């Protein structure tokens, strides 16, 4: 459903807006949170079900989504717990989030059948029945009215599907499991999707893949707003993919102005941190490849980096040691403004996981997505188009801004390597989605990418394809390219970097 606006997108955004609205409007000294009982009726009005078989179930699911959006765990379905349990404690400016970040709401899950081949009523039970003849394990036979596949024998080679002249055989599986490159989705006792937290790397693609809206991640919007409302200084570090995400009229300057209208003091570009990352990775590459490490993998996508380390522990040292751009940018802010809170705004669920790591916690206070930010704008009724553009300064180079699209990271690093060591050839291999990353890692294990720079991205098309985005990938990529071209620095080495922590829009 990526790129399409469905009822699921609508519900998700309505929940963010409800939570944001209450975060901004509640009495800070006296909150009872009963507001959220009413939220489920505002989002699902009336007595007749709109989306599912029962209006009560629809509201029950909304209530769990609200808890997740508050940063709280979902409740077990078999014991009594009030909706508001834990909410008083969640009304804090401190970090509240705990794993698991990505949650299946079990009673929203429709327990789709797992991956298998299936014969449809397109089958004519034809004379030739090539499906049986091509099966290497004798799993296909001709039944009373149609071909029958013995699921116990089937090895999922797909030959029967290819051979059928009526397209009567299809492969069908769970959209969540298919989106999961880490193969982390299994089943609970009732056949519903269950995430294996040891395998999950929090890329969040299952969230946008589930057609029944049964998967959601936790949010930190409530804690962010609490920080703003209790008078704390909050800096926003915004990822390079932000341009084009908030509507055709929302220029980068207007988006920045909108963020400041929420009460955030300054906005800086994470692309600046990307430039730092490019310099580090180029240095590491020139120093270690091929003598110390056969190849170097980029490190800016935490899901890819974590996946690579889990999938091929023996090659873990070949993933660059540098921090992600988010961390580099946040460290810089905290150095100069130790008391400020930092919110990272991006397309990414995986950065929420990264921000929970012990080394990262001191720097990044909250991580929210563009979609969640849109919820904040909507709750505050901020019309981006009516705001005066915040003046943008060059904070990131063209290459740093291009981190947002697949291929951009490797190109940025290669450009620095070639400036530092003219004539040095750098073969590059890149993969987007963890399915592709898995293949790339297999080649790496087999020694086929020695001397290479590997770029891994968990999301299709790179960060512009992240689960927290609002814009279609192709349009977002164009906006990113235009914004990148507008920088007066070409590569990371052109960027003077020592600029005072000045925002892309001065405070």
């Amino acid at each position: 459903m990526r790129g399409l606006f469905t009822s699921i997108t609508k519900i998700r955004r309505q929940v963010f807006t409800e939570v944001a609205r209450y975060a901004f409007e509640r009495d800070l000294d006296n909150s009872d949170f009963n507001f959220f009982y009413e939220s489920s009726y505002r989002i699902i009005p009336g007595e007749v079900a709109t989306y599912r078989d029962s209006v009560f179930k629809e509201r029950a699911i909304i209530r769990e989504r609200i808890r997740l959006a508050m940063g709280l765990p979902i409740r077990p379905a078999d014991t009594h717990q009030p909706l508001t349990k834990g909410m008083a404690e969640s009304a804090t400016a401190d970090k509240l989030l705990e794993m698991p970040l990505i949650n299946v709401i079990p009673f929203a899950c429709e327990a789709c059948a797992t991956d298998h081949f299936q014969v449809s009523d397109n089958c004519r039970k034809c004379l030739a029945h090539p499906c049986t003849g091509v099966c290497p394990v004798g799993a296909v036979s001709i039944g009373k009215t149609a071909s029958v596949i013995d699921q116990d024998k089937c090895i999922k080679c797909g030959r029967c599907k290819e051979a059928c002249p009526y397209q009567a055989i299809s492969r069908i599986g769970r959209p969540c499991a298919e989106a999961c490159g880490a193969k982390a989705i299994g089943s609970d006792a009732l056949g519903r999707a269950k995430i294996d937290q040891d395998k999950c790397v929090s890329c969040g693609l299952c969230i946008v893949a589930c057609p029944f809206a049964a998967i959601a991640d936790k949010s930190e919007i409530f804690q962010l707003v609490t920080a703003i409302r209790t008078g704390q200084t909050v800096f926003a570090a915004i990822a390079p993919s932000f341009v084009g995400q908030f509507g055709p009229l929302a220029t980068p300057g207007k988006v920045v102005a909108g963020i400041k209208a929420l009460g955030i003091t300054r906005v800086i570009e994470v692309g600046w941190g990307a430039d730092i990352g490019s310099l580090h990775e180029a240095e590491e590459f020139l120093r270690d490849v091929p003598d110390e490490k056969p190849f170097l993998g980029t490190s800016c996508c935490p899901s890819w980096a974590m996946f690579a380390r889990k999938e091929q522990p023996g090659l873990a040292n070949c993933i660059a040691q540098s921090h992600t751009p988010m961390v580099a940018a946040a460290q810089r802010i905290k150095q100069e403004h130790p008391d400020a809170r930092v919110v990272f705004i991006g397309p990414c669920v995986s950065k929420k996981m990264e921000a929970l790591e012990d080394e990262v916690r001191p720097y990044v206070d909250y991580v929210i997505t563009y979609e969640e930010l849109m919820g904040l704008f909507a709750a505050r009724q901020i019309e981006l188009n009516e705001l005066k553009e915040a003046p943008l300064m060059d904070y990131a180079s063209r290459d740093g801004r291009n981190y947002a699209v697949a291929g951009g990271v490797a190109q940025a690093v290669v450009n620095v390597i070639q400036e530092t060591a003219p004539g040095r050839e750098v073969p590059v291999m890149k993969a987007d989605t963890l399915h592709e990353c898995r293949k790339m890692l297999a080649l790496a294990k087999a020694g086929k990418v020695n001397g290479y720079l590997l770029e891994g991205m968990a999301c299709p098309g790179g960060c512009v394809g992240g689960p927290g985005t609002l814009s279609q990938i192709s349009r977002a990529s164009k906006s990113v390219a235009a914004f990148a071209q507008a920088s007066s620095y070409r590569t990371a080495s052109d960027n003077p970097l020592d600029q005072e922590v000045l925002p892309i829009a001065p405070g």
Partner: protein
Amino acid sequence: MANIIVEVCSGTHCVMLGAMNIIDSVHSLDEIRHDMDQCCEVEVRAVPCMGLCKGGAQGPFVRVDGLLIKGGESDSVMAAIMDRCAQSQDT
């Protein structure tokens, strides 16, 4: 050749409820209309907040040649455009 103007409200409320996806779906019609030999041109305009959400109505708000669609979705907007195209072919 008929020229159909589609104005899509691009205020915060409407973008949050899918205005960008409506614009995408209007663009996606170009190919279909070409295949159907419909010769009308469709021009999409992203317009600032129409102010209609302030009265409590639900967006996205879209005007197809002046005809207002409230709570617009890709399908209703595409259907309205295809209708207009067909009308202009007939006349």
